[in-house]
């Protein structure tokens, strides 16, 4: 069977863990800066005051003036979620994380260990921790397991042993991955339950609602996958540098990154392995955090390559940072790499360069490759010194 563990409003729960007093007051996750001002998850006190997730910020504050907005803390979410995944892996569950707050695992490997599906789910919930109010569901299909977890109460494990389609039939359409507009359209047509959607002809659904509707129809009929792709547990090599004061200067941050790379590459646990995936994280002034992951095209343990991959990310930092961290997420052995016998030079190098430029032009369009031509380098007016001339 496929099992699903669901923690509703995970980002908000993670942000409130070190501020338990806020749990009793109406609280919601603030919208991300630069995006549409829609609320994230809300807690029970906010829901009781009439605030709903994805409500417009202005409307929410008008509905509940005492609403407290909590900033998203990407680093805390990431570390809390990683902690949960590792506790589950330590308990023997090979998990496939979908997003923070939702994961799947296959129960076949653990049923005998824990004496059945339901005890295995209870063990998984215990591994997650009671304070997260996680729900668990298990069924023959992934979507049915997700739906079972979604309707289960916090701390409850719901096992669907019957036909998944029968279980899904009386459930509301909100469980299906459908856009709000599409769901409303269906509700106006009198289709309010998953079973009613499953009873419609597939071609008619596809014609009316498009590919998303067709997929939702397949899910409603219990026709989705059963396979769980368990993740490989990540490497545990991380370095963090606490800065003496908040730093926003990119040059200083690049120096800090160099120091971190030197330290992390010298760690004996790496054992000569090369880095495939690496994460750069920062704790920001004002309490927030920031994180970016980079997968290298070719694994490398070269400081210069890692610096070239991570350095440009520093320009995306939204605020000065209090600490900077690097984590090696995936390591690989460097055996079997094809090296060039002779370094390309002369005509060969020119041909490769031309080919590279041709590919850039093909993807970015005519005029994307340009040469800087100095026309008046002595000029005191900066924009009159050089021209960008397209190389077409």
């Amino acid at each position, binding site marked *: 069977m496929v099992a699903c563990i669901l923690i509703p409003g995970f980002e908000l729960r993670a942000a409130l863990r070190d501020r338990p007093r806020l749990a009793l007051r109406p609280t919601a996750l603030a919208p991300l800066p630069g995006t549409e001002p829609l609320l994230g998850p809300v807690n029970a006190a906010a829901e009781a005051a009439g605030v709903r997730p994805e409500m417009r910020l202005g409307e929410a504050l008008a509905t509940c003036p005492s609403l407290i907005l909590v900033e998203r803390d990407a680093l805390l979410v990431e570390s809390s979620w990683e902690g949960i995944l590792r506790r589950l892996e330590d308990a023997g569950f090979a998990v496939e994380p979908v997003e923070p707050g939702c994961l799947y695992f296959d129960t076949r490997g653990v049923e005998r260990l824990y004496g059945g599906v339901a005890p295995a789910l209870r063990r998984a919930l215990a591994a997650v921790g009671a304070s997260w109010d996680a729900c668990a569901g298990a069924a023959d299909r992934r979507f049915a397991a997700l739906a079972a977890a979604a309707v289960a109460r916090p701390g409850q494990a719901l096992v669907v042993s019957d036909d998944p389609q029968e279980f899904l039939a009386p459930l509301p359409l909100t469980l299906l991955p459908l856009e709000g507009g599409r769901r409303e359209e269906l509700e106006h047509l009198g289709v309010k339950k998953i079973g009613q959607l499953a009873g419609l002809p597939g071609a008619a659904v596809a014609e009316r609602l498009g590919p998303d509707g067709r997929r939702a129809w397949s899910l409603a009929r219990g026709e989705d996958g059963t396979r769980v792709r368990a993740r490989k547990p990540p490497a545990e090599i991380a370095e963090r540098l606490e800065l003496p004061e908040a*730093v*926003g*200067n*990119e040059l200083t941050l690049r120096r800090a990154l160099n120091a971190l790379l030197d330290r992390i590459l010298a760690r004996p646990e790496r054992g000569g392995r090369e880095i495939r995936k690496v994460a750069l994280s920062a704790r920001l002034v004002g309490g927030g955090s920031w994180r970016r992951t980079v997968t290298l095209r070719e694994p490398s343990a070269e400081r210069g390559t890692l610096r070239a991959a991570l350095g440009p990310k520093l320009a995306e930092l939204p*605020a*000065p940072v209090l600490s900077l961290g690097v984590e090696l997420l995936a390591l690989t052995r460097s055996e079997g790499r094809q090296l060039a016998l002779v370094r390309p030079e002369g005509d060969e190098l020119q041909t490769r360069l031309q080919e590279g430029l041709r590919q850039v032009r093909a993807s*970015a*369009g*005519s*005029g*994307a490759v*340009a040469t*800087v*031509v100095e026309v008046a380098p002595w*000029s*005191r*007016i*900066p*924009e*009159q*010194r*050089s*021209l*960008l*001339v*397209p190389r*077409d």
Partner: protein
Amino acid sequence: MVADTRAAFTARPARLNEPRAALVEEGIDGTPRLVNRQPVEVVREEWRVLDRWWTEEPVHRRYFELVLAGGQNAVVFRDEERGGWYSQRGA
């Protein structure tokens, strides 16, 4: 018809480091206090460029090299001929 998003690149020569209009709030002495809504932390340098005064399009700019509260370096100038503030790279 589907728009070609690659048309953003023009195939004509363009000037490098063209000035860009900036939103600057200045203090009593004419030095910038806010640049694009970010407070100015330090004015590192100030200089003037007077050029082409013999042509119909003279250039008279008052440049400031700044460090903003976010830690970014910025160079802005006030166009003393036409008015208005601009940011510029390569100055």
